[in-house]
């Protein structure tokens, strides 16, 4: 997923800020991105868990799918645009209520995952017939081509490539946002809206990739500087790079496309069966429905599990073995958990060996080490839950 060596790396509207902060820049999905700042990955990770980390995720693919012809009936317009995305996913997009966001997957005809993404419906009925869609950096060109093809002229996909996407994550994120965009703190988890900041509109969702409460803010490129600086001015906020983003999402048990998910893995195998909605199970009208429904009523060939590893970290590609030493699977993400102070990993194993507490082994540099199946996430999620009064 790294860039073609010959192609120059793309920059985000915030690249010069990263350099000024002493970031170590790396090539990622064709972009020059901050791996870490001077504090280092573990410090950035721990700061995000305790306070709030600010991530530049402008390499990702935010976009808006908008009907060409919008008669103006909110529900009818939504149903029409939702049908385009439903043709590619197993989720209930039509059932999204205004302002709500859903995690889903793009599927191929074999039920394999082409990408994972967020899809949201505008809160404002005046914007009916549109969806806010955020896809992964490395797959955005192919995803957008697929969505554009499915739209077949009925809707246009407006890419927000020139904008900046910031993620503010951590238990203090809401307090920080309250001082910058006060209305945004009323958002519930997995919802989004449009808010004013510095005479422009921000698209803000209450979502993220760390397991913490947090927000993702889409800002026009000419206001990206101002928003970045305003958020960092708060002493509870420190910048965090892709390194900490990876360790945080690993602890949160969240899969990373291209590693834990690929075109051969089904949502059932990946532990993402919740993306297959009840209505779509009945209508069975999504790509790969035959396989996915068979896996749901029977058993998939493999399932994604969490592993507590003893000894050296078991990295991606490490062979997982049963108690007798026979190879049974592969680690798809692995490393060191700063919160637990130990190596953890995710990988695929047969269902019969996937129960919590199952003793497995991993082979690291030809040395056999114990690995115990554990429930995901490794570190409990602390997403925002609205008080019901």
């Amino acid at each position, binding site marked *: 997923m790294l860039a073609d060596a010959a192609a120059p790396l793309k920059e985000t509207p915030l690249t010069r800020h990263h350099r000024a902060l002493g970031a170590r820049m790396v090539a990622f999905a064709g972009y020059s991105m901050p791996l870490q700042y001077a504090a280092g*990955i*573990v410090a950035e990770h721990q700061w995000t868990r305790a306070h709030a980390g600010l991530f530049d995720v402008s390499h990702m693919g935010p976009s808006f799918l908008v009907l060409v012809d919008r008669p103006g009936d909110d529900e009818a317009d939504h149903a029409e645009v939702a049908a385009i995305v439903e043709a590619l996913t197993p989720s209930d997009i039509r059932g999204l209520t205004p302002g709500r966001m859903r995690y889903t997957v793009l599927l191929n005809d074999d039920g394999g995952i082409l990408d994972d993404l967020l899809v949201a419906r505008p809160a404002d009925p005046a914007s009916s017939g549109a969806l806010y869609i955020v896809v992964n950096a490395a797959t955005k060109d192919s995803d957008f081509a697929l969505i554009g093809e499915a739209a077949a002229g009925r809707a246009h996909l407006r890419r927000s490539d020139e904008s900046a996407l910031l993620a503010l994550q951590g238990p203090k994120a809401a307090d920080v946002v309250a001082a910058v965009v006060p209305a945004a703190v009323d958002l519930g988890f997995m919802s989004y809206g449009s808010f004013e900041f510095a005479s422009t509109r921000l698209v803000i969702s209450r979502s993220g990739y760390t397991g913490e409460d947090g927000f993702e803010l889409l800002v026009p490129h000419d206001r990206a500087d101002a928003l970045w600086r305003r958020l960092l001015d708060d002493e509870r906020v420190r910048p965090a790079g892709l*390194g900490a983003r990876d360790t945080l999402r690993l602890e949160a048990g969240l899969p990373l496309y291209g590693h834990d998910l690929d075109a051969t893995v089904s949502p059932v195998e990946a532990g993402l069966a919740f993306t297959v909605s009840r209505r779509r199970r009945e209508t069975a009208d999504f790509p790969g429905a035959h396989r996915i429904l068979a896996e749901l009523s029977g058993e998939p060939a493999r399932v994604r599990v969490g592993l507590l590893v003893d*000894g*050296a*970290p078991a990295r991606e590609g490490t062979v997982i073995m049963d108690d007798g030493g026979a190879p049974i699977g592969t680690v798809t993400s692995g490393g*060191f958990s700063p919160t637990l102070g130990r*190596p953890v990993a995710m990988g695929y194993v047969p269902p019969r060996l996937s129960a919590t507490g199952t003793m497995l082994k991993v082979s690291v*540099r030809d040395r056999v080490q114990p690995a115990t199946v554990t429930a995901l996430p490794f570190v409990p999620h602390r997403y925002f839950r609205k008080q019901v009064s």
Partner: protein
Amino acid sequence: MTTRYTRDHEWIRLEGDTAVVGISQYAQEQLGDIVYVELPAVGKKLDKGAEAAVVESVKAASEVYAPVAGEVVEINQALADEPATVNQSPEGAGWFVKLKVANRADLDALMDADAYGKFLETI
């Protein structure tokens, strides 16, 4: 005693009959937070350039090579519980192994601190 350096960022320093080996300040900065160190067995004979240890940061695993040939006579057991010592004191308490050096003259072929400093400017 003079500390010598390799182009792979190990250091080696004679202390009496043995030589202490570790990784440089530059190496620990590049690796970042070190979370695991795998050390060889005492008694293992290493050729010059052979893998002497593995150091793992949050991001990746890296090999540490023997700067000269020798036999491992002691390993820094404290790194098993406190691998971050390598970050805090790479050229002191964060040493990796002590070698009984086969040929002390081998050290003279390595860079001294000045030469290593100049080498770092080129990378």
